């Protein structure tokens, strides 16, 4: 059974209450991956309770109307299942992989958790301590500090993409059970709910199980969320976060880019691959790691989202190499701006991204995550077949035009976190 030849063949069924169910049967492995996503990501956090979506994700599975926290623990641990919760800007996703024989029980449990959590007070206090500790750990990590601060620079003035998903100690300390209940009531609804099931279970049976678990759920639709446009930075800006107890500095250098639906999305995906992905970090890795030996990692990443997501360049370097690294990043950005990518680079990047699809769709969890993304952004049931054509069609000129739209060293936002003495070293701004 080859997924490459005929493509994925997911069954998609919208339920009467607005939920969308997607099922794909595979027979590679006697297990099933379940993902259930609601539109309750951190972008929905009210400012006074920043971090409430993340907090909720940690406590939602600690007790329901029908199951105590202990009963949930026994049900999961007895089957070897880890229930993972993750919070992005837009979605809160609960996911797990279970043996095929446990599929019905696990789907019913996840539905119960999503629909009828009770948020027991003692559990709230326990998770609060964990979250505060996790925030304190983040504050000691140059990599995390650099990236979070860069998001703040790129998305200022309370923009939902510039805020910390975990919240800040002040808001996490003050979040109450009433806040969690209110957030659940406001955001958890079958409208916009996605249920993705991939694995060794017939699609029809999986869909029937999802209908049983979620079909009778009625709840008001959440208020629509508007993401404000992300302004392009007016000038170059640099922020230094001194962490003098650390051995190495982290550099994060970035721009606001485009939405997932932007016509330039695929052109920028290819450009990003050439700039900071292909091989060991693309052109950036060649320069900073391979030729100059300055870093263990140097790469770029690009994230198209509902709003304009970021393009971020990252490197971890010795403090004495920070300035030279930023000069090198400026050089690579200038070079790709003026000359674009070469025909050979574009061919290589296309071949790589298209050729990597069977690998990315090899496992149940890989397929589930692909279907989840395709459904959220409305990319279509046959997106696995159309993506190669979309990438193939991108021209050199389109890549170059899209690059000029986004990259500009004179408007770069830069954060340095680590043992770096800012006072004596001004930004080596590009010539």
């Amino acid at each position: 059974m080859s997924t490459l030849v005929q493509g994925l063949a997911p069954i998609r069924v919208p339920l009467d209450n607005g939920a969308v169910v997607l099922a794909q049967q595979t027979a590679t492995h006697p297990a099933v991956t379940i993902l259930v996503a609601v539109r309750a990501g951190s972008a929905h956090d009210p400012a006074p309770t920043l971090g409430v979506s993340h907090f909720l994700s940690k406590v939602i599975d600690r007790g329901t109307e029908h199951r105590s926290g202990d009963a949930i623990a026994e049900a999961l641990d007895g089957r070897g299942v880890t229930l993972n919760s993750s919070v992005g800007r837009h979605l809160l996703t609960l996911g797990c992989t279970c043996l095929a024989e446990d599929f019905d029980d696990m789907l019913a449990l996840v539905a119960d958790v999503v629909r009828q959590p009770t948020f027991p007070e003692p559990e709230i206090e326990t998770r609060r301590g964990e979250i505060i500790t996790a925030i304190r750990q983040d504050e000691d990590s140059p990599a995390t500090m650099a990236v979070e601060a860069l998001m703040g620079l790129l998305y200022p003035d309370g923009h939902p993409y510039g805020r910390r998903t975990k919240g800040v100690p002040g808001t996490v300390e003050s979040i109450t059970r009433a806040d969690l209940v209110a957030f659940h009531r406001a955001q958890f609804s079958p409208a916009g709910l996605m249920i993705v099931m991939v694995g060794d279970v017939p699609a029809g049976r999986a869909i029937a199980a999802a209908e049983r678990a979620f079909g009778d759920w009625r709840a008001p639709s959440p208020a629509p969320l508007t993401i404000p446009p992300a302004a392009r930075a007016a000038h170059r800006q640099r922020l230094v976060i001194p962490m003098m107890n650390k051995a190495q500095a982290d550099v994060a250098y970035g721009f606001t880019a485009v939405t997932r639906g932007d016509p330039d999305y695929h052109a920028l995906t290819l450009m990003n691959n050439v700039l900071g992905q292909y091989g060991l970090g693309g052109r950036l890795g060649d320069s900073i790691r391979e030729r100059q030996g300055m870093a263990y990692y140097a790469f770029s990443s690009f994230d198209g989202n509902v709003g304009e997501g970021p393009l971020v360049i990252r490197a971890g370097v010795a403090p004495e190499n920070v300035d030279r690294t930023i000069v090198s990043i400026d050089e690579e950005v200038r070079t790709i701006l003026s000359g674009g990518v070469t025909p050979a680079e574009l061919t290589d990047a296309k071949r790589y991204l298209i050729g990597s699809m069977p690998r990315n769709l090899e496992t149940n969890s890989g397929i589930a995550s692909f279907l989840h993304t395709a459904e959220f952004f409305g990319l279509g049931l046959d997106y696995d077949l159309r993506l190669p054509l979309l990438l193939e069609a991108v021209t050199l000129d389109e890549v170059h035009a899209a690059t000029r739209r986004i990259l500009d060293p004179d408007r770069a936002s830069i954060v340095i976190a680590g043992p770096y003495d800012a006072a004596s070293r001004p930004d080596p701004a590009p010539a």
Partner: protein
Amino acid sequence: MATQVPALPSLLPVRQVQLDNGLTVLIQEMHTAPLASLWCWYKVGSKDERPGLTGVSHWVEHMNFKGTINIPRDQMKGIIEQFGGSWNGYTWIDQTTYLETATRDALDRMLFIEAERMASGLFTPDDCESERTVILAELHGGDNDPEQLLDTEVTAAAFKAHPYRHPTIGWQSDLETMTRDDLYGHYRQFYVPNNATLVVVGDVDTEDVLRRVGAHFGKIPAGNVPPRIRTVEPPQLGEHRVAIEKEGTAAYLKLAYHAPEAVHADFFPMLALDAVLTGAKGVNLWSSFRNPPQRSARLYRALVDRRLASAVFGALLPTEHPFLYTVAVTANDGVPLEAVEEAAVDVLDDVRANGITPGELERAKHQLRARLVFESDSGTNVAHQLGYFQTIGDLDLYHRSWDSIAAVTLDAVARAASSRLEASNRTVGWFKPSPTPRAPEVL
């Protein structure tokens, strides 16, 4: 809860062949995706390094991505990428390994790369020098993480004689002074076919793979089998303690007990014991399924549910020689490490005195078997397991793992707990944060 045994891809037939030059070849056909995964394993890791040369295996691994006689350095990149493939490598205490996973039509290119890597590495002096700073950056990046720092200190304190004591990345002074000839000498000594295992898993035809392997590797001559280390760690006579006090924001506790090697009769009972204490992780360190089901685990209940800690993680991996069973704990903000240690040790003392319950053993077995299924979800993961077990012990150990878990008894767990969790077999590590005077952010 059914106990029926599902068909594991890892239990499909494996063809094992040894070439005349001693290269072991393992092939498993898996026709579920149009992919092939190839791993080339060398029986050399940081335990095979002498003082002054710590970190040499890992540095050699880095050099083996920098071109060979027939693959110029700037052409190494792109060979696998044009088939949409990924490639990587890692070094640990017993092994160095390289992998490529790509569409099946890349198989011949993968074999070419690995044959070149085995016999024709360049190690140019300039490349060795430029990689020195990359390795030091990797070392310092690790030092940024207090948990990794504590792990290094605890491991060094746990072993007095066996070379498992030094970190795989090596000690800084060795990394600063090692020469190109040190690197090249290590490479020539250990990268011989009779010290390697080649694994191919995927949408391939076994006979075709064997022909191609013969063509690429058959002419590489066997070498002298490298000497193996003889040191056996003497029994620990009393508890070891190490306390780091350093600027930071969170406190960490690490407990390490000398543990059985993979082939020891106590290994699977210890794995079940770990499942009871911290939740089952399975035995694949390459897999993404390392986040255990642990809400009802004893140490989770005692530390996390009681708000002393935000996280607890136990680790027992199959190794060639006796290594460590470790329990790593992140203390909750404001909780003193004394209280965390006392609560953790109470749990360990209790299980040592009283063993585990029949219900706990059943749950542990079910967890471990589910994890064995989850962690074999791709050709890449299956190939990793075949090569890993062949390198640290033997393949049979892997193929028997399902039965070995089923055969674990309450008595075996109790015996393992009683003999291994003694205080005198333990190293206790603290990372105690001192306040970080944070300079203001500068715009």
